[in-house]
């Protein structure tokens, strides 16, 4: 197996070409044993988006969902095709705005819950009065 291992010692007067040495071993004339196992890199779309037709990315403004790990400036992956359930983090239409809350459906009623004690819950008269825009499935949190 012919392998070039660098770096070389370079004189101050050496030409640029002489520094072009591979930092890693390069196989010459012998196929990489890994190449048969390469099926492509991880594709985030494939893993994070179930249905491209009904999935949108939105950006969060505000800190009322901190407790759910959703911070100001984070991006959310929202699937409109999912049925919202008790406990779902939903994008709801409130007063003409898209708002992110946790949906609580209990025998006592329907509540849109913030995940930050500084923000009050919002009581919804009935589920049918609520427009759920989509269900958040992932948060792309900036670290």
């Amino acid at each position, binding site marked *: 197996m012919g392998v070039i291992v660098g770096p070389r010692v370079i004189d101050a007067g050496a030409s640029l070409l002489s520094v072009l040495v591979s930092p890693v071993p390069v196989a010459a004339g012998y196929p990489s044993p890994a190449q048969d196992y390469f099926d492509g890199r991880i594709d985030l779309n494939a893993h994070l988006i179930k*249905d*491209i*037709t*009904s999935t*949108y*990315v*939105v*950006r*969060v*403004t*505000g*800190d*009322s*969902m901190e407790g759910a790990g*959703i911070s*100001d400036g984070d*991006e*959310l992956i929202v699937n*409109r*095709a999912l049925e919202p359930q008790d406990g779902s983090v939903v*994008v709801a*239409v*409130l007063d*003409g*705005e*898209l*708002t*992110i809350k946790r949906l609580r459906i209990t025998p006592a009623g329907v509540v849109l819950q*913030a995940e930050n004690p500084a*923000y009050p819950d919002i009581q919804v008269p009935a589920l049918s009065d609520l*427009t759920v*825009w989509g269900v958040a499935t992932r948060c792309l949190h900036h670290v």
Partner: protein
Amino acid sequence: MSRPAVMRRMPQIAHVDVNCFYASAERAFDPSLEGKPVIVLSNNDGCAVTRSPEAKALGIPMGEPWFKLAPRAKEWGLVALSSNYELYGDISARVMELLGRYSAWLEVYSIDEAFLGVKGSPAELLALGRAMKAAVRRHVGVPVCVGIAPTKTLAKLCNKWAKHNPAFDGVCHWDSVPAPVRQALLGRLSVEEIWGVAGRLTKRLNAIGIHTILDLTAADPVAIRDKFSVVMMRTVLELQGTPCIPMEEERIGRDQLIFSRSFATPVTTRAGLRQVLSVYGQQASARLGKHGLQTKVLTAFAGTSHYNQHQASYPSVCVALPMPTADPVLLTRAAHALLPAIEEGLKYARAGIMVTDLRPTGNQSPLEPFENPHEERHIGTLLEDVTRRYGRGSIGLGHAGIKTGLDWSMKRDMLSPRYTTHWDELPLVKAA
């Protein structure tokens, strides 16, 4: 009404279109627009091309120039938006993709409407129509109406009924409407309401005593052909339930790319078409580059409206390229080969280019003498990079560039965010 089972299994055609498409696409991401009069303006913020029902209720006519509306917009609470083509294109693609799940036989007719071949009993077809309507609304976020009938012309008509008659709740199936009700509805509608009958033809039809759609349905197709045209005869046959307008062949395949559109206002000059073709040439280059493909054959075409009885011109050229290429300069130049065939002064309603004989880039490097100087300089990738960063229209070649004439350089002062195609313009959701 008892029909033989065989009749029921005859394929039917569903026509699906998005209600007030541009305005609905905007509302999907900005719910504050709900219930407000909204108009979307044409290129250069020229005139209203989409009106929400509230805007129609204000009496704003289709095509009203913005400068006439602007002074009263505040008083009306009217929201005017520039055409957000990036958004509409993406929403359209989502709608079509979703509809394609309901039928293998899908013809994308325009950005917001499609025909689908469907089969089933009346009950099944109604259920299918409702399922499509609900799915597009929920999954993509825009409202559609559905018309289902034995022919395209009737499907379009049913869609119109579905839209304007609340009793249908957005889905109308021809055979499910009792015959006396159909007759009554047809008798009330002017022939002008039919797909393909323009204002001028209405006058000519009226002159021979045909006023309503019911009148035209009762007409003798052959007599109509003699007095008018084959096109009009087809319309009569379609109204009578005989399919005459075939479904179009699949337009976008693995081995071809099509860039085509109908113009909101006809293009009447060679210079105008030169710009259009330049834009398509660059789009084709970008799309080919994205897929790592090159083309060997470019076809450019243009046409007057099929419903324009007085002008008929459908020039097309097919250019065999000297070597496979995705170079914007070469593709644009090839597209311009159509220009000598364009007749100045005719009203061209559509134009397009198609690239075929596609092959992977760099399969075989061309011999040195044939090397293309533009490709060498990576002009195509450069244009794409600049466009991606600074938006469409920020850079372009020659006639498609920033020095374009008025029609194609876009003024979009009231542009909403490109919510689904640009990371910096995502919809905002409030956590408050």
